[in-house]
Structure formats: C-alpha cells, structure tokens
C-alpha cells in the first residue's frame, strides 16, 4: 500500500493540469460566448475531479508515513479535499443550464483552492523558504567565530553544518525517514532506521551514510544535493567519536593534529570551505574576425580563453613573417589579448613598441628573443600582468627592477641573462614574485645508471 502514497507527488499533477485547462477554456467561453466548448468542458472537469479524488486518497496514505510537519500537512489535506469536492460540484453544475449563473464564482473559488493546495504541497517538498529566500544567501547567516577554542562544538560548528546541508529534508517541515536534525533532542532520538549518532564514530549511522559512495542510493546528502566537504566530514566524525556532546567547548575536547588543522581552516575560512575565487575577467568587445583570420593565416594560433569570453590567447608559434605589418594587425587586438607568447628569435624591441596598449595582458612570454630593457619599461605599465618570461633574451636584471610596480605579478622567469650577480637583490625587491634565474639541476647519482641484480 505504501506505493500508493509514494505516487502522490506524481498524481497531483494530473488534477492541476486538467483543472487549469478546463478553467482556461471556461474563461474563454465567458469572454467570447460564441465559443462552444460544451462538448469538451464536461469531460475535462470530470477527469480533473476524478484525478483530484485519487490524489486525495494517495495523499492520505502518504500522510501516514509521518515524515511531514503536521500543521502544514493538515492544511494541505483539508485544501485538497475541498478542491476535490468543488471540482465535482463544478462538473455537476456545468451540465445543468439553470444553475449556470453562479458558475463563474465557483470557477474562481476553484482556482484559489488550486493555488493554495499547490502552495502547501510545494512547502512540504521544498521547504518553507524555497520561494522567498535566496538559498545562497542563507549560508551567510552563520555567525563568525572569534576564538575557535571557546566555541561550542555542537552549537557553533556542527549544527550550522547540519542546518546547511541536512535540515531541508530532515527538519521541521519535512522529516525524511522520520529523522530531524534541527535540534539536539531530535538528533539523539534518531529516525526510523535507528539512532544516528550512537556507538563509536565509524558505526554511527549518520557517518556511515555520509561516507557511502555518492552513487549509492543510501548516500547522504543525496548525490544531486549539496555535498559535505571533507573538512566538514572530519568535524562530524570527530564530534561523534568524542561522545557527540551538545554542550562541550572545543577546548575541552581532545584533538589530534589533523583535526587541529581542520579547525584552523574552519576558523579562517568560516564553515563554508572557501571556493577558489574565480578570477574576474574583463568584458571586452569581440575581435574583428577579419584580423583574426589574417593572423591565423600568418601562422598565429589564436584561442578564445573560453566560449563565453572575447578575450584571446595568442601564440606566435608558426609565424615566419618578421615584418611590422603583422604587429600592426596584432595591435588591433590590444583590448582582447590576455596571453601573448612570442618566443621567436627575430622578435626585437621594435615589434613590441605598442605593447603598453595591451591593458588586459596577464601573461607574456618573450624567450629567445632580442628584446632589451626597453620592452620591460613598456611592460611595467601593464598592471594586470601575472607572469613574465624573458629567459634567454637581452634583458638585464637591472632592467627587471622596473617590474616592482606590478602588484599582481607572481612569476618571473629570467634564466641566463647577463649580470646575474644582481639576481639576489632582484628577488628581495620582488618579494611576492617567484623569480627563477638559474636553471635547475638534478644531481647525478650512482643509482641513475646502475641496476640491482638478483642476490641469492
């Protein structure tokens, strides 16, 4: 019999569909009396009424499972029954000419009932805040933890995690598996499959469900819902292992080194593991397709950085034309280019004389070229630069000093330049930049070229 109840979420859409189409046609007929849907209207409303009746029966069955907030579900039930009754009444009156006068009012009440019943149904499945509250913002409600040692493990750390990831299905409105995780008493009580947090950590039902592979039907939270991060799991595991107290503070609970580092991260980042901050890319106009075509023909690989952006990455890999004509064309892409690789022996300062106009440039590679410090002077105007590679060019270390003003610079590759005694000072001047000035070497070991043989 349980299956009948489970069909309820499916069945309810039938009366919604039938009744809405019926009401629309009826409304049309009122506005334009020449329309005669008489033949169609009655069967539509009969079907709607029968479907509403079936929905009511299956709904009553589902209600017995006790997984829902009693107040909301009672209101939903009452409205649903009323809806079924009014549907039958409407169908019946539709056939009787004499009673047609008050029919429009009945139609309006039918519509209102439909909306209210549907709304309560929605509240039961999606939670009460679904319509009004922005789900993303609700995460920010968590209070900041000043000192993690003084925090109450359950109240300040565990409960917020549960509220965010579990309570929408195991809370006041909806109690899947008869389980509520929205307050300490309810958590201790457990659900229909038994206690959630009893026993040692690895036997605790809550943790077992969390640790099942995401494809497992029993895995919690369900695959398509927001998942727990590994830090959050570690915290829950620790909480259960240490006796799942609801009142102890963090400082009173023994912790090993790994949980200490999790806590540290938790305090720094807040409970929500910081998503890597997506680098903001500027919005620019699309490049002139004719220029792109021409440059591609000349052997330049041009790739948009993504299919939603007009920014471009240029690699001059197969360019053989050393004339300025090509660079006049490249200059037309100064808005769009974010990555420029021109590692060609014939590249000179002259080619790059307008490089300071490429304001969005983030990465430039000019290895094995003939460029000098003049180009570095130009590059120092490009505030967005993150990575500069001028290995094996004619740039000097003294010239590189001009890059100090680039706040965003993170990588500087300057291998085999002249005046290398200056390298140490350069690194000191660019503390946030990984400056690579010497090629790495890998030591030679005896074992590199010898083999182990069988010893009997």
């Amino acid at each position, binding site marked *: 019999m349980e299956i009948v109840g489970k069909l309820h979420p499916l069945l309810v859409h039938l009366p919604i569909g039938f009744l809405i189409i019926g009401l629309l046609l009826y409304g049309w007929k009122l506005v334009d009396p020449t329309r005669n849907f008489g033949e169609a209207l009655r069967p539509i409303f009969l079907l709607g009424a029968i479907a509403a009746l079936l929905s009511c029966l299956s709904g009553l069955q589902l209600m017995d499972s006790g997984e829902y907030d009693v107040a909301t579900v009672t209101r939903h039930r009452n409205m649903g029954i009323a809806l079924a009754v009014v549907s039958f009444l409407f169908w019946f009156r539709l056939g009787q000419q004499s009673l047609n006068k008050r029919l429009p009012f009945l139609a309006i009440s039918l519509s209102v009932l439909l909306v209210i019943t549907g709304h309560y149904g929605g509240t039961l499945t999606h939670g009460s805040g679904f319509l009004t509250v922005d789900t993303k913002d609700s995460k920010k409600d968590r209070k900041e933890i000043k000192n993690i040692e003084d925090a109450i493990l359950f109240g300040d750390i565990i409960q917020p995690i549960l509220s965010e990831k579990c309570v929408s299905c195991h809370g006041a409105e909806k109690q899947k598996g008869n389980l509520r995780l929205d307050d300490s008493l309810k958590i201790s009580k457990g659900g229909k499959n038994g206690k959630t947090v009893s026993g040692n950590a690895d036997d605790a039902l809550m943790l077992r469900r969390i640790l099942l*592979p*995401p*494809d497992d039907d029993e895995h919690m939270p369900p695959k398509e819902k927001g998942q727990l*991060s*590994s830090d959050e799991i570690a915290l829950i595991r620790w909480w259960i292992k240490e006796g799942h107290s609801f009142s102890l503070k963090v400082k009173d609970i023994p912790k090993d080194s790994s949980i200490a580092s999790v806590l540290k991260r938790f305090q720094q980042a807040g409970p929500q*593991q910081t998503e*890597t901050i997506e*680098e903001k*890319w500027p919005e620019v106009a699309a490049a002139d397709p004719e220029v792109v075509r021409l440059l*591609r023909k000349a052997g330049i*690989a*041009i*790739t*948009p*950085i*993504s*299919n*939603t*952006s007009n*920014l471009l990455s240029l*690699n001059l*890999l*197969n360019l053989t034309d050393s004339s300025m004509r090509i660079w006049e064309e490249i200059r037309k892409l100064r808005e769009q280019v974010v990555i420029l690789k021109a590692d060609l022996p014939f590249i000179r300062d002259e080619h790059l004389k307008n490089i300071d106009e490429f304001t969005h440039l983030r990465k430039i*590679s000019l*290895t094995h070229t003939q460029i000098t410090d003049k180009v570095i002077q130009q590059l120092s105007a490009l505030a967005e630069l993150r*990575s500069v*590679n001028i*290995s094996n060019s004619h740039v000097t270390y003294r010239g590189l000093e001009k890059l100090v003003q680039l706040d965003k610079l993170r*990588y500087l*590759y300057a*291998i085999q330049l002249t005046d290398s005694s200056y390298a140490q000072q350069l690194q000191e001047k660019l503390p946030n930049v990984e400056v*690579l000035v010497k*090629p*790495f*070497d*890998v*030591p*030679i*070991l005896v*074992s*590199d*070229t*010898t*083999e*182990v*043989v*069988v010893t009997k």
Partner: protein
Amino acid sequence: MSNKTDRLLNQSREEYLQYTTRRHFLKECRTGLGMMAFGSLMGSCDFFGSKSGKNGVPELTAPLMPRAPHFPGKAKSIIYLHMAGAPSQLELFDYKPELLKLHGADCPQSFIQGKKFAFIRGVPTLLGPQAEFRQYGQSGAWVSNHLPHFQSVVDDVSFLKAVHTDQFNHAPAQLLMHTGSARLGRPSMGSWVTYGLGSENDNLPGFVVLTSGGANPDAGKSVWGSGFLPSVYQGVQCRSSGDPVLYIQDPSGMERDLKRASLDAINHINQQSYETFGDPETLSRIAQYEMAYKMQTTVPEVMDIKDEPAYIHEMYGTQPGRTAFANNALLARKLVEKGVRFVQLFDWGWDTHGTGPDGALNVGFINKCRQVDKAITALLLDLKQRGMLEETLVVWGGEFGRTPMQENREGKQNAFTGRDHHADAFTIWMAGGGIKNGVSHGATDEIGYHAVEGKVSVYDIQATILHQLGFDHEKLTYEFQGRPFRLTDVHGSIIKEIAS
C-alpha cells in the same frame, strides 16, 4: 511484318521497363537513399546543426584549429605518465608502518572473504613495505628511498592516496583509466581533449603517444584510440629512435613537388567524394594527408633531441637515439612547447608479481624506479623553469595498485617478493596546470588495503583533468547512436581538494 515489329518493340519496351525497375533502386536511387539515410544520421549527430559555432562541433576542414573551452582553464596541455603494469603504491608513496609489523602474518579472513583477486588464492601472508620512507619538503610528503630525485619536487605535486577503480586486470583497467569504459570502443582522454580544444600547432598532431619499456600497454592502441570521434583525434604514436613515425620519409627518388602534386590530386578526388556522400571521415582523411605532409618536415625536427643543450641531457639523463623513458620525457616537454595538446607516455614493466627477478619488488621494480625517477624529476623542473608548469598538467599513475599481501599464485608463495593487482586503493599524483601544491588527499587503512578517507574514482580523476583544462566534464559530449556520450559517462566529480 508489322505484327512482328510490334511484338519486338513491345518486348524491348518490356525488357527496358523490367530493367529500370530492377536497376532503379540499386543504381539510380543509391545516392538518393544513401543521402536520405545519411541526412537523418547526421541530423542526430548535429554536425551542421545549431551547435556548430563557438561551442559546437569543430570545423571539419580544420579539425585541429584551436578552440575555446567552457570556462578559462588553468591548464593548456597535458603530459600523462602512465606506468603500465601498475606500480606498487606501498613501495613508493603510501607508507604503512603497521604493515611492516604484520609482515609474514596470515591475511585476516575479513579482507579476503568474497573478494576476487587476479592471482592470489587461499590465504596469503601480509608483505611489509619493501622500501624505506621519509617525509620530504614543506608538505611533509612520504616518499620511499626508491625515488631519490623525486623527493626534491614533492612540494610541486599533489597526491591522491585513495584512488580506486573497478577493474583488476591490466587491459580493462587501462581502458577504464583512459577511455572511461573498461570495454573497447570509447574515445580516449587525449582524443576528447583534442576534440574539445584543438591544437595550437597545425603542423603537428594534437595528441602524441610515446611508449617505452619494451612493449605497448596491455590494452593496445585502443587506449589512445578515437572511438566514435572523428579519427583525426586519435593519438599518433611516435618512436624515439629511427624514423619517429614509420614510413614518414618519402621513398628514394620521390621529389617533394611530386608528392605535393599527387596529394593535391588525391585530395581533389576525396573532396568530390565528400561532396557526393558527405561522410565526415572523408574530411578527416584529407586533413590527415595534409598533416602527414607537413609532419614530414616538422616531426623529425621536433622528435630530434640531439640539438638540446648538454645541461638538459644531463638533467634528464638522456642519450639521443635510445628508446628510453627519459628520452620520451624530454620529448614530451619539447612537444608541449611546440603546442601539442596531449602527450601520453606509457612505460611498460611495472607489473611486479614476484614470479621472476624482473617482477620482484627488490630487483626489477627498483630498476624501473631508477629508469624513471631522474627523468620525471627533470621534466617537472624543466617545465617549471620554462614557465610551462603553470599551464601544463602532469599526471602520474598506473591502472590500479598492488595488494598489501605477498602474491601466492595457485596457492603457493611466489619465488620473489611481489604483490598482486589491487583495485581498491592506489596512489596517483598530479602537478602543474593549476593543481594545488603539496596537498595529500585521501588515506588508506593501516595496511593500505581500503580507502578510508578522500576516496576518489577514476572518473573523478578524468573530471578533474577536464576541469583544469576549462571543461565541464558533463558538457563535453559527442552525439553518437542517438545519445550524447562523454568521457566520464554518468560518473565523476571534480576533486576540489587539489583542483583550483
């Protein structure tokens, strides 16, 4: 007389009618029917449909033209180092002191009950780690004494210590790792990537495969096949000694312009054939002829490591002209530098069962480590000093791991120390291409048998690799047999702990 002529005329007309009715379908309608069928096929493939544009199916005449991913990716190229045969994680990265204490003890029943092994039968004994471990770098990563060079680069690497697969035989496990299916017929990861991104250098293939160790991987060429993707995306296997690609040189006496002229003629005919039948494979064929022509000059050049400076050879431990993993590692760097999208290295000989000295953990395995250790370290450092590690993702791993038990083939202890295939937990590492530095994600139990924390699947690895390149692995799809296919099929989630 007239009667006779009439009869003859009628007879011939009848014959003509019979002739047309029979031949009509077979001959005249062949193209028409074919095109109708093809049209419907193509309709479902969406070759010329709405999607072909920025995000859609690549231009068939320039299948390797560089294309944009779904979002700006951190990595532009991949070097995948596959140790074919499956190296033992317990002798390299997954340090299990508890296993040493239990060395020689019978394996508990709970571990072997209901479990299937490739070779272990009955009750095997536990085998302690056959290596010494220490922690290295700021990250404190555990590395064994078999990798004395690699110890110095652990802070550039992120380890996945609890990878699992569901195949315990080499060929299906390799197929699963590289094509997302243990059965034949799916495109390999390299094919998906070149299909999605194209290649920056149209004089070279977008996907190159290099093998060492004396044999190809057990799953054969299907691990770099293109499956149902256009065949231009399949991996091109190059050799590091002799002609890099077999028969790449023109036969003696054939001039380059004669070659050009004959290619032009062949392409012209192929083009006509394409216009008649519309088979996309014809365009693939034209593109491949053109690429082969260009490769005749570019490939020998890029595949020649003689011109590399001496300090580079010293760094990698390379000797030009040899077929060795080290040469392949250096070539991988050169190829990526030249704009190749995906370089796949297979090194055969890691299948350490302990049946003979070559497959013994204390003999052959150590020698295998020595063959790759310096070269892998050099590759990472070389990429780093060239500014290429920022955008080149290096992946190292096997197709599965090895058991904490000594293998006992047919119930008898093997002659040498060795371990059986183990699908439940093994180690893979990644470096560069936006992967975090010095993270160790996941852990196994005290003897390294089960994953207990941070368990990731082969599909998760594939999803993460595609993510680093800028792809949503659920959206990089290809319509085939009426449904969109993808590398990770219906699985996979990005390993956020190491991705960025």
